[in-house]
C-alpha cells in the first residue's frame, strides 16, 4: 500500500512537470496539444546525448554524485536539454502552430499537434533506434526505506522528487511574488485582457513554450532515470499528462501540479483492484470521472 503510494508520488512528480506547460498552452492557445508529451522524449534524448558528450569531453564530470547513478555530467546535460527542448517547443510553434493559428483554424490546431507528435516520435525512433536506453549502465540498487512495511526506493528517484519539489517551490515564488508571475497567471487566465493590460502576448507565448518545454524536458529525464529511455515515452505519457491537466482544471498551474500527483497516485493505487496490464486505461477512467463529476477540474473555471 505505502509502496504504491510512494511510487505514485514519484511518477506524479513527473506528470506534474509535464502538465504545467501543457495546461498553460491549452488555455492560452485553446487547443489540446497532443505533441506536448513528445517534448518529454526530446528532453530525455537530448540529455542522453549531452551527457555522453560531457563524459567524453570532461571525464572529471563522469563521477557519480554520492549514492546516485546521476553524474555531474548528467546534471549539466539536463540544463542544456531543458534549453534545447524549450527552444524546440518554440520552433514547433513557429513552424506549425502559429501558422495554423493565424489562419484562424482553431480546431485544426489539435489535428496539427497529432501530426507533429507522430513525426517527432518516429524521427526520434529513426535517429536513436527503437530499443530502450539508460543514462547509466551501473546498477543502482533500491534503498530499503523501511522493512515493515517494506519500502523500496532508488536514490535517483528521491533526488528527482526533491528537484521537482524545489522547482515547484521556485515557480510558486515567482507566480505569487513577482509581477512577471502575475503576468504569467494573467495570460493563462485571460489572454485578451492581458493584452489590454499591456502584456505582449506574442512574447508571453514564447516564454510559455520555453517554460513548458524546459519542465517537460526535466520530466522526460526523470522518467528516463526511474524507468528507461525509449521513443515511446511521449506516447505512454500523453494520456496521464492530459488527465493531470483535466483533474487540476485547464489553465490552472497549481491545478496541474496537484493533478499530476493525484493521477500518479490514483494510477498506482488502482493496481490494487486492477491487474497491472490495465494501468494504461486508468487515466481515461480518471478523465471521464472528472468530466462527469466536476468538468472544470479542481481549480479550473468554466469556459466554452
Amino acid at each position: 500500500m505505502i509502496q504504491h503510494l510512494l511510487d505514485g508520488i514519484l511518477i506524479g512528480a513527473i506528470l506534474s512537470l509535464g502538465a504545467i506547460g501543457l495546461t498553460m498552452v491549452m488555455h492560452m492557445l485553446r487547443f489540446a496539444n497532443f505533441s506536448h508529451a513528445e517534448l518529454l522524449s526530446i528532453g530525455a534524448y537530448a540529455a542522453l546525448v549531452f551527457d555522453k558528450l560531457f563524459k567524453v569531453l570532461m571525464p572529471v564530470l563522469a563521477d557519480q554524485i554520492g549514492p546516485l547513478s546521476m553524474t555531474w555530467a548528467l546534471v549539466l546535460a539536463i540544463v542544456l536539454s531543458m534549453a534545447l527542448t524549450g527552444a524546440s517547443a518554440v520552433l514547433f510553434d513557429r513552424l506549425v502552430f502559429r501558422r495554423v493559428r493565424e489562419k484562424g483554424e482553431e480546431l485544426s490546431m489539435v489535428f496539427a499537434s497529432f501530426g507533429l507528435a507522430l513525426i517527432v516520435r518516429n524521427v526520434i525512433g529513426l535517429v536513436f533506434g527503437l530499443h530502450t536506453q539508460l543514462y547509466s549502465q551501473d546498477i543502482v540498487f533500491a534503498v530499503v526505506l523501511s522493512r515493515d512495511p517494506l519500502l523500496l526506493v532508488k536514490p535517483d528517484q528521491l533526488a528527482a522528487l526533491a528537484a521537482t519539489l524545489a522547482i515547484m517551490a521556485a515557480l510558486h515564488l515567482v507566480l505569487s511574488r513577482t509581477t512577471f508571475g502575475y503576468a504569467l497567471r494573467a495570460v493563462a487566465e485571460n489572454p485578451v485582457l492581458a493584452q489590454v493590460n499591456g502584456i505582449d502576448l506574442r512574447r508571453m507565448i514564447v516564454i510559455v513554450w520555453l517554460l513548458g518545454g524546459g519542465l517537460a524536458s526535466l520530466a522526460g529525464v526523470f522518467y528516463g532515470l526511474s524507468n528507461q529511455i525509449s521513443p515511446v515515452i511521449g506516447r505512454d505519457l500523453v494520456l496521464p499528462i492530459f488527465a493531470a491537466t483535466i483533474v487540476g482544471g485547464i489553465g490552472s498551474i497549481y491545478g496541474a501540479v496537484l493533478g499530476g500527483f493525484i493521477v500518479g497516485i490514483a494510477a498506482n493505487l488502482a493496481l490494487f483492484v486492477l491487474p497491472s496490464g490495465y494501468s494504461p486505461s486508468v487515466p481515461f477512467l480518471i478523465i471521464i470521472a472528472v468530466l462527469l463529476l466536476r468538468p472544470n477540474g479542481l481549480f479550473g473555471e468554466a469556459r466554452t
Partner: protein
Amino acid sequence: MIGVISYLVFFTTVASILAIAVLGLNLQWGNTGLFNGGVAAFFGAGAYGTLILGGTPQAGHLGGFGLFYPLAVLGGMAAAGVLAWIVGVATLRLRHDYLAISTFGVAVAFENVMRNAEALAGGAKGLRGFERPLRDALGDGFVYNIAFLLVVLVLLLATYLFLERLVGSPFGRLLRAIREDETAARSLGKSPARVRLTAFVTGAVIMGLAGALYGTFYAFVSPQDVLPTLTFQIWAMLIVGGAGNNRGAILGTFLIWGAWTASGWALSRFAPIEAQLYAGSIQYVLIGLVIVGMLLWRPQGLFPERLVVSQSGQG
C-alpha cells in the same frame, strides 16, 4: 494476371471499408467540427462486437453466440454507438479539447482492454472462431472475395447516399450552423449539445459498420487492428480528401491507402534488411507530414467542399 486482379479486389475491398469509416469521420469533423481522436476504438467496437456476436462458441473467451450475420453487424454498430454515446455525454457540452482528449483516451483504453481481457476478447492473440457468412455456398476463394467486395461497395454507396441526404436535410444545415456559430444556433432554440451528440454517435455507428466489415473480411480481429495508427491513417484520408466533402473523403481514402500500401511495399522491397525494422517509423513520419503539410498548405484538401452559400445571405 489473376494474381493482379485478386490483389486489386483485395485492395479495393480494404480501401472501401476504410472509406466507410472516413465517411463516418467526415460527418463528425467535416460537417459538425467534432474532433475524434479515437476512430480506432469505434472501428474496433464494430469489429469486436460483430465477431463476438456472430462467431462460433470458443473455449476461453466470450462469444460464439452464432447470431444471424446481419444481426451481428447491427450489434457491432450498436456497440460503437454506445461507446460514442458514453464519451459524448461526458464531453460534448464542454469545450472542444475535452472531446479530443476523451476520444483519444477511449481508444487507448479500448486497445488496452482488448489486449488484456482474454475472457472477453481473446486478449493479445485476438478473436478467432468466426465463420464468414455464406462460406458454405461461395467457398473461400476468388468468388467469395468478389461477392464480398460487391457487398462492401453497396454499403459504401448506401452510406454515401445516406450522408449526402443527411447533409442536405434541415438537420445537416443545423450541423453547419453549429459548426460555424454555436451561439447563433443556440439562439435559434436548438440545443447544440444534443445535435452534436446525435452527429457524433451517428458517425461512430458508421465507423462501427466499417469495423464490422473489416472483421468479417479477415474473420479475425486483434489488438493490432485497433492501434492509434488506424486513427491517424483515417484522419490523413479525410484531410487529403477535404473535410466536409463526402466524395473527396472517398477519393482521399483510396489515395492514402494506395500510398500507404505502396510505400510499405517499396520499403520492404528496396530498403536494406537492417532498415526493415524502421519501415513503420518511416511510414508514420510520412503520414504525419501529410497531415501537417495539408493543414499548412492546403487545409481545404485536394478536393475541397463545394462552396455552400450561407442561408442567411450576407449583406
